[in-house]
Each structure stands twice: as C-alpha cells, then as structure tokens.
C-alpha cells in the first residue's frame, strides 16, 4: 500500500491498489491525481445526496471464492437515473468493479479478448464476439457522467467525466460492459450475483433498516 499526503490538507491518502491513479481525500474532499508519488489537486468533490446504498468504502465480500474489498466509488448519472460503480481490490491483487443499481449487483473484471466494436457501430441487439466467452448481445447503451467519486480509482473520475456505457448479456447470468471514455476504451466481463451471495461484511448502517 502506498500512502501519500494530501497537497491541500496534509492528511494521509492511501493507495491500496497499484492501479489507482486517482483519489479523493477523505478529510478535505480534494480530488487528487497521482503522478507516481506526487499528488496533484484537480478539484474538490461536493457532498452527495444520500442514495441509500448499503455499500461503502471498506465493505468486503466474496466473488468467485475470492475475497474483495471496496476501495473506491464513482457514481454516474444518465438520462434515466443513476448507478454506482464500486472499485474493488481482490485479495490476489486483481481489481474489479461492482456495479450497483436498484438492488442489482453485478461484479465484473477487466477482459481483454475479442475485438472491441467502435462506439459508432453500437446499437441495441448488436452481437459482440467475446472470444472464449462466446457471443454477447447489446442490451442498451447510454451516455453517462460522473457526479461523485470517493476513495481511489484507476482513472481521474472528476465530476463531469463523460463516457458511453454499453451493457451486454451473454449466456446464463453473464454480463459485459464496454466503457468508451475519452482516455481509453475498456471491456469488463462478469455476472449478476444476489446480494446475499456476496456475503458482504462491513456494510453501511442504514437507519431504521
């Protein structure tokens, strides 16, 4: 783990994953970009309206028999709502994303097989070859904007970061996401898992629940 100090308030800023290049200071909410061991302040994160999510930084769970810990989050908005992308560090050092929306929890990991279609060719119903994972079908795609971030993330998720998010479904409960962002295009593959099956620990305390 790398610990740096916040250029704004001097508090410790932890980077648990080597892949993380962005963090929000947990004390002064400065958004910080990491250049090797130097932190550059690019803005300040405003408070978020409580979204009733049961997850928080530090929540741990199990995915495919591997323990993970949530180390960052980006909340995004699109024309019909919001969802949370929780950044998770697995105990073997890999990183993944836990997408959470309206009680659905999909865990996905970076995926490098197959040929990524261009963003302009994406339309609902299009099939995408996911190499050894077979053919996936585009369910929907939407323009999303980051509205909040916390913890550490593998890219600069300043408020207003824009991307196109494409959801695909495969066999069984497999799903994939393609994210077309300005700096890169990334593919994630994973599946929907029931809340209870994650065996979450250290969940947020929700008053009255």
């Amino acid at each position: 783990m790398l610990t740096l100090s916040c250029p704004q308030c001097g508090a410790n800023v932890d980077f648990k994953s080597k892949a993380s290049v962005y963090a929000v200071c947990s004390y002064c909410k400065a958004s910080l970009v990491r250049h090797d061991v130097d932190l550059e302040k690019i803005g300040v994160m405003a408070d978020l309206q409580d979204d009733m999510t049961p997850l928080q930084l530090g929540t741990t769970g199990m995915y495919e028999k591997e323990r993970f810990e949530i180390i960052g989050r980006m909340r995004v908005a699109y024309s019909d709502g919001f969802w949370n992308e929780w950044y998770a560090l697995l105990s073997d050092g890999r990183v993944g994303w836990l997408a959470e929306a309206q009680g659905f929890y999909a865990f996905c990991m970076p995926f490098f097989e197959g040929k990524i279609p261009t963003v302009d060719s994406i339309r609902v119903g299009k099939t995408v070859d996911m190499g050894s994972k077979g053919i996936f079908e585009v369910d929907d795609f939407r323009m999303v904007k980051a509205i909040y971030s916390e913890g550490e993330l593998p890219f600069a998720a300043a408020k207003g970061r824009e991307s196109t998010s494409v959801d695909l479904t495969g066999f069984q409960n497999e799903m994939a996401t393609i994210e077309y962002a300005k700096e890169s295009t990334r593919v994630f593959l994973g599946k929907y898992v029931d809340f209870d099956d994650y065996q979450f620990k250290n969940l947020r305390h929700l008053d009255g629940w």
Partner: protein
Amino acid sequence: MAGNTGDPELPANGQPQDGESVVPPPPARKPLARNFECTNCGASVTVKYPGASLSCVCESCHAVIDVTNEGYKILSTYAEKTEKYKILLPLGSRGTLKGKKWEVIGFMCRSDVASLYYWYEYLLFNPYYGYRFLTEDKGHWNFVTMTKEKPEVKNTAVGFRSCEAAFLEESNQPFVIYNRGKSRVDFVLGEFYWRVRINTEVFATDYINPPRMLSSEEDNSEVVWSIGEYTPREEVEAAFNLQDKLPKSTRMYATKPSLALADWKAIWPCWLLVLVFLFCAQIYFSGQAENVVVSQFTGNFIPNQKFTDVTIPKFTINSKKSGNVHIEVNAPSDNSWFWLGGELVNNDTGDSYPLEFSCEYYHGVDSDGSWSEGSTQSGHTIYGVPGGDYYINFDGESGDFRNNTNQQSYNVTVTRGVPEWMNWFIASFFASMIPIWAWILMRRDEVARWANSDFNPYVSSGSSD
C-alpha cells in the same frame, strides 16, 4: 449468515466484524427525507428516499414531480382529483414478505389499453435488496421480482397444442403465453425509482406457470423481465399486520395454485399404475383359465319351423371347483332370425340354469353402401357352475330364410372356464371413478384460470376474438 434471517450482516453498533479493514463509523447524517414545495400547487411534498427515488407524487394535487434535481420539474399532472382508488397497503408501511423486510413506497393503478381491465401495483423498497412489486388484481396478489435474465421465447408443445412459451434457464418448464397487449399507468402515488408518467404505455406480455408468472414489459428503449409469484391474501395480511382484512376472492386466477390440479397430478400416475396392474392381472388369469370345450353339438332345422325337445347328451365337467360355462350358438341366419330357449341341467342334482339364444343377422345394400347388423352367433355365460355331469334341453324356432326351406344346421359349443373380462371391467371402472372426478375438478379450475386469457386453450381459436 446473511440470507438466512433475511437481514444482511450489519456492523453491530458500528463495531467492525473482523479485525481487518477498520472503517470509522459514518458521521451522524442529516435526516434523509427531503421536503420541497410542489411546483404545481405549492403544497409541501416529502421525498423519503431522495437519492434512490427519481420521481415523487404530490399528495395534494397528484402531480408527478422529477426529484433528481432542485428544478422539481413536473412530469405529469393528474386532472381529476379522485378518491376512487382504495389503497390497501398504506404508503410507508413495512412488512416482512418472502423473508425480507419491505417498505411500501409507491402505488400505481395500471390498466390494459384495449380492455380497460385494471389492477394495482405497490412498489416495495429495501435498500439492500432493491425493489419489488406487489400486484393486486381483484383480490389476488403477486410478488414480482425483476430479473436480468432474458428468458427464451419460442413455440412449444403444451398438452396437445402448440403455443408460445417463455423459458427460464433454471428448468425446461414452459411459461405459457396468457395475455399480450399495451398497458398504461392510470394513477400513481408515492415515489418511484424511475420517472413515472401518467398514461405512458408499455407493450406487455404475461406467461404463466402457476404459481409463477413471467412478464416482459417493453418500451422504446428496453425490455424488462420480471417473475411474479402468487401470494395468498393471508400472507400479505400477516406481512403488513393489517387491521382490515383484505378483500377476498373465491375465483380462479392466472397464477393461483389449483388444489385440484395438484390432486390430479398426484392421482393420475397412480391411476395409470392401477389400470396397468389390473390389465396385467387380467392377462395372467386369462392365461390360467381352463378354457376347454366340453361338448359340441350340431343340430338340424328347417327355416320357419319350430322344433322342440332337443337334448344335448350328457357331458362331464371335470373340475371340482365351480367356474363359468360358456355356451355359444352358431346358426346360418341370413336376413332372418334363429332362436333357442332351454336349460342347462345338472344330471346329479337336477339344478338347472335357464338359457336363451338369438342369432339375428341382417344385411343389404342401400344408397350409403353395404350394411349389416346383428350376428349369426349368440353366446351366454353361466357363472358358478360346479363340476359334474350335465345335459341341455331346448326348443328352437326360426324366421323365414328368404323362402329357403332347405334343411339347415346349427352348432352349439359348450366351453368350461372361458377367460373372464367382467371382473376386470368392473375393477377398472371403480378404480377410475375418483381419478375421473379429480380430472373434472382439475379441468374446471383450469377452464376458469384461462377465462381471462386471450390465448384461452379451452375455446376454439375462431371464437376467441
């Protein structure tokens, strides 16, 4: 473990569950609910879960308001202020249903655009498990869970017909198409996780496999699948601790489990087994039957003349046990009749068994082709005949054999221990009475179940519209 109790494992009083990843307890938070003035009427509106809900209804003017930002844009207004919707589960009430705690946060009245058939939907919320719908349709309740799975829809054979059905990956049980059409939102109250608008229409299809229903709802941008499960009224009453009993319905419903169907499913394999057993037993006992001819007699007669006091000479039935005796008469009746009447007499005891035979055979050709009726044979079985020596006495008579006055001959065959089918028939009949009754009850339920369907298999396709 989480999942057993229905509640996820929560940090007790902020104490971390294990030594690792210690997180400071969250700071005391402001009250979650947010109040604002209705953009339409100015009344105070409260959003209970502002970060989760996207739209909310003003209780005063029933305008639907976008609550995703401070603009509070009006999504739709409700023209008539009406109290006609009776909300059975109060908004804000909580109940434990299917092992989890749910809060009622929204209410909708929806209807089928074509038929105006309407039903109610209660939106349930739990911050850990998301959203469910509890639908109420004329006293019948369904607990509905959205699924990310895309069921496979294809034509399949169900019973003796082919119909559209949807399949989940979990099994090859078909969910059979029940209704399809546009449905509309007529009325809303409470708050919702999407921007609900009055009068928006979706294209909906319901597939049933009682007690479950698979539904798809399609709008311009997406298809949403959900799985509904029939939930008895009493379960809903108990879950929400309702003081007023929920309205009853004694009628059948698309997803209502049928006791008669369950009975039928349990009974018919047993029935089949019993019938097969009886048949095998019958075949076995038939094979065991003595089936020996103990006397054969040929007599002569002249058509259209009576004859009397014919005696078939004494013959012996060897077996000691009593059994059946089958007597068969064969006469060359040709568009005429031949009759024998008499008795079988035990030579030792004098016991007698009355006999009567009638061989009538008519045939010809008419505009429909050739026809025939009756038979030149006539048989009679006597039961419980002990062994011993017997003879037969009879008289005979016949009709006009087409003016054929030549002497004719007839045969009488006496057989001991013929294979017996009557007992089998009676046993099968009694073994079938309860199954047939169960089938009638089952079918009555299923006919009622499908009465509201546009895909009713119990009406011919010609009259279904």
